[in-house]
């Protein structure tokens, strides 16, 4: 069993060495760099049972717009929402939601700060019998 703090001691050596090396490096100024996050596009497919809901988390790396497009589902509308992941127990706490039918334009488009978010798909009370399959696309910074 590793003694508590062992990793920290090793890190201490590594940091010390890095400081020594970096401290004596040439003093040529470097051009300041800006960090830009490439837009991400995620696809997600699954099923929703009668009275059920399912959710998926994603990370927004910088402030920008989240677009959610329900691209495939059954013949009746289903609920789609975006929010924050629950702190415990999984699931999603929704900030906005819509009753959606499949399409090619985003059913949800909203500004968001950088952070952890989730999208949830849920039955509006219209699913009976077998679970309904769906597919959606999430575009975000």
């Amino acid at each position, binding site marked *: 069993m590793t003694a508590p703090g062992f990793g920290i*001691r090793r890190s*201490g*050596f590594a*940091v*010390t060495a890095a*400081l*020594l090396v970096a*401290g*004596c490096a040439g*003093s040529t100024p470097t051009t300041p760099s800006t960090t830009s996050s490439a837009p991400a596009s995620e696809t997600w497919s699954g099923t929703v049972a009668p009275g059920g*809901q399912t959710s998926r988390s994603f990370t927004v790396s910088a*402030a920008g717009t*989240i677009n959610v497009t329900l691209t495939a589902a059954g013949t009746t509308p289903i*609920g789609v*929402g*975006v*929010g*924050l992941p*629950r*702190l415990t127990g999984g699931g999603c*706490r*929704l*900030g*906005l*939601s819509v009753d959606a039918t499949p399409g090619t334009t985003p059913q949800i488009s*909203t*500004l*968001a*700060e950088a*952070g952890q*978010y989730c999208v*949830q798909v*849920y*039955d509006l009370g219209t699913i009976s019998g077998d679970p309904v399959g769906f597919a959606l696309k999430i575009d975000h910074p």
Partner: protein
Amino acid sequence: MRVFAALLCAVPVTAAACGNGSTATAPSSTTPTVKTERFDAILLPRTSAFFSFQVGGTGSVSINLASLSALARPGAVPAVMEIGYGVPAGEGCSIQNSVQTTPGLTSQLTGTLAAGIYCANIADIGNLIESVNFSMRITHP
């Protein structure tokens, strides 16, 4: 402990060895780390709730009502609520600044606060017809 001592010694030694005759700079002040806290709870109609947080140094504080959803059914509740910040007073929060807003994924209220203990508050102004789950994000130094 010896390693940490070595690390602390290495920094000034390195700087001195590679000085190149540069002018000494004044010690810089420490910038408090910005942190985001979550306040998740249940709000009953015509009630309020608050969350205390500690600001480590003068800086920008932002409050975001990110989620409002019914307890017994899925979907977001787009009700206008009042969110604010202030200082704890007795068993409540003495509001200094507030705004009425619907849930969203960007900050609805910002301000500059000095180091100290503050509280973030949420209140129903008469729009809730049922109890709701809510999620707030408080970002502060």
